């Protein structure tokens, strides 16, 4: 919260000193701007990476409600084409990314329409349902004011019954500057605080006091967006799992790992229907031999992860669990060094050229002013690989290609059981 207080004390833009932004860009000897621009981009990239700090206890199993304002103010065209369309477009990306990064989490959507709150989708773990629902949300008629309290109450009602080992969160996307509530909203905020539900608000117009207060009380984040790129940044920051709430209980959860029954005693598996589509009239269940069978009650599902409809067992596959391990064991940040400090490899086939260890890009003094060194394997990487390794790959290339490097140790000391063979 210290950050927020600092922000409050900041001067307004028009009160600060006159900034000569163009002076930050300097041309090099040849009169080219490439080097200077590359430097600015590098700095921005670096800053983002440094913000990621190692968290030991995270809320890995997340139950998240996204509350979308569908009031009149969402038709304002300051975000192109309109606020609502822009929001929906970004939410689609967000949902894909959310399930990619948090495979055993659940998400639901609530719409605030004309002072009422309406559940668009229930909490589920499949992105398809949400994407379909979002499509229908585009054509909703935007009238009247939203009610923040009704939305929060509806989300609270569902999240209250979620098991206590899960991380419970609400993300509100508000376009309106006002909220029209039935009773005092502070009661709802107190209740959310008591339950330990983390609320974050992204405002599309301006900072709203009650929203700021809500996020401060529930340890969430508040952001007012500048433009669509900033909006995207704000929304995507919700993808990473937050630190575990104090109220969150730790427990062992019983899960099933279904195996595909393709052959039973030498014969093909019998034809059967999957449980997930059995009550779906639009896409009826198809008779087929493939599918994932619940190890407890033997009902079939065509997609994982899913909660068994008949016996309530959570069904996952091993790669699903592995997908979230990188949040717990992040790659340590690399040290930023200058290209001069990189020793020239004098082996005969190298020819004395300095290159990035991972992508074999030739490093030059103009474009690669700063390069990055892994503290464990002592290899040097270009800025792009540094970002790629930390943001996407989540594994240091040097540590994993050179046998006997200490770098593999950081995985094993924090998690000696990472040697799971399957």
């Amino acid at each position, binding site marked *: 919260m210290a950050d927020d207080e600092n922000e409050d004390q900041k001067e307004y833009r028009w009160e600060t000193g006159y900034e000569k932004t163009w002076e930050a860009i300097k041309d090099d000897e040849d009169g080219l701007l490439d080097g200077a621009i590359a430097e600015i981009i590098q700095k921005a990239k670096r800053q983002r990476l440094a913000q990621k700090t190692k968290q030991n206890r995270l809320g*890995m199993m997340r139950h998240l409600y996204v509350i979308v304002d569908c009031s009149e103010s969402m038709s304002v065209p300051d975000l192109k084409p309109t606020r609502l369309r822009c929001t929906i477009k970004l939410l689609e990306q967000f949902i894909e990314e959310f399930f990619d990064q948090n495979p055993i989490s659940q998400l639901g959507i609530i719409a605030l329409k004309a002072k009422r709150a309406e559940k668009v989708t229930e909490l589920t773990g499949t992105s398809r349902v949400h994407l379909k629902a979002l499509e229908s949300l585009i054509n909703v008629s935007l009238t009247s004011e939203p009610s923040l309290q009704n939305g929060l109450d509806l989300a609270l009602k569902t999240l209250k019954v979620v098991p206590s080992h899960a991380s419970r969160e609400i993300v509100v996307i508000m376009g309106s500057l006002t909220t029209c509530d039935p009773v005092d909203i502070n009661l709802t905020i107190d209740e959310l605080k008591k339950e330990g539900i983390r609320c974050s608000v992204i405002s599309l117009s301006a900072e709203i006091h009650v929203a700021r207060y809500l996020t401060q009380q529930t340890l969430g984040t508040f952001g007012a967006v500048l433009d669509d790129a900033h909006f995207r940044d704000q929304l995507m920051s919700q993808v990473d799992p937050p630190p575990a709430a104090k109220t969150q209980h*730790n427990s062992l959860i019983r899960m099933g790992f*279904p195996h595909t029954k393709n052959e039973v005693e030498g014969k093909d598996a019998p034809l059967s229907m999957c449980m997930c589509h059995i009550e779906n009239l639009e896409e009826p269940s198809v008779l087929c031999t493939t599918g994932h069978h619940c190890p407890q009650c033997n009902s079939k599902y065509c997609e994982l992860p899913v909660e068994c409809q008949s016996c309530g067992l959570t069904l996952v596959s091993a790669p699903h669990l592995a997908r979230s391990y990188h949040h717990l064991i992040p790659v340590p940040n690399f040290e930023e060094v200058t290209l001069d400090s990189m020793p020239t490899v004098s082996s005969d086939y190298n020819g004395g050229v300095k290159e990035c260890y991972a992508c*074999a890009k030739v490093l030059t003094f103009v474009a690669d002013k700063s390069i990055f060194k892994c503290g464990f394997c002592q290899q040097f990487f270009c800025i792009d690989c540094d970002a790629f390794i930390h943001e996407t790959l989540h594994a240091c290339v040097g540590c994993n290609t050179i*046998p006997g490097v200490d770098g593999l140790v950081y995985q094993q000391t924090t998690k000696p059981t990472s*040697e799971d063979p399957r």
Partner: protein
Amino acid sequence: MFFYKIKLSLVFCIYRKGRISADTDADKLPANMEAETSSKEAESSIDLLVIVLDTNPSQHIVRQNPQNLTQILEAVIAFGNAHLMQKAQNKLAVLSCSHHATNFLYPLPRRQVELRQVDGQYEAFSLVEKTVKQQLGSILMNAPRLNGPSESLLAGSMSMALCYISRLQRNVTSGVKMHSRILVLTGSNECASQYMTFMNVFFTAQKLGIVIDTCALDKTLSLLQQGCDITSGQFLKVTQLEGLLQYLLWVFLPAPQMRHKLVLPPPPKVDYRASCFCHRELIDIGYVCSVCLSVFCKYSPICTTCHTIFKTPGPLPIKGKKKKKTDKQ
């Protein structure tokens, strides 16, 4: 279809690989493929193939007969050139994964190998052949002595391939599509200690739309099988090493986009069950720690991985029921 035949037979003409009959395989190709390949979309796109070649001398097949490595290398070079021949825009990279390091065999950004047209062969092909052979030779010469068997760090080599692909993908001019894939050729056993890296590689590849193909030369590798399944690639275990080039050309040469039109080996049944961290046995139903997601086969009050103390599950549901009852009364 007809073009395809020509291409295949061209490959064989150039490499004089002998009496392998390309016709039998080419006959299996469906007739409508010609329309597919001649479309403009295909012309403007770039196909990048990165071959990760396991050159670890402690592989079973290499120890058995050191000549095998030469044969594998010949097949890989011929296969790589066949890929380059399919389209002028196609790109190729070869990485070697040895017991001590991973290196690029082709392309080399630094010194170009001197080129002169030999025997009427297209220069680009002789460049591939010369660079790969020279580079691998110097790597093997400079390699430290092998004391006992060592594992190949394939996962790391694949992560290096991903970095390379992502660099090329960043530099592609807008409007041009690039389809990338990784082909892993290995005769090593799989190693459980690389599990995390393997998984990270598979998910990154899936995210970037990179197909991972595996050609297992010796053993069936269940981890790489999972990777192929996740990225919708092809897994093949070669039964006869002599026919390696034919296997490669038949299964791995066609681009993934047109593979569904071919008759390829059926995908193996992939076992996605987790193994518990305590006994390393495959389990159907297990307990997962809510903090670190470790898998256990039996309930224990403390997580052995992250040392979290769990609340006991037994008495709680009863309490809940009692409360409800009192409320109703």
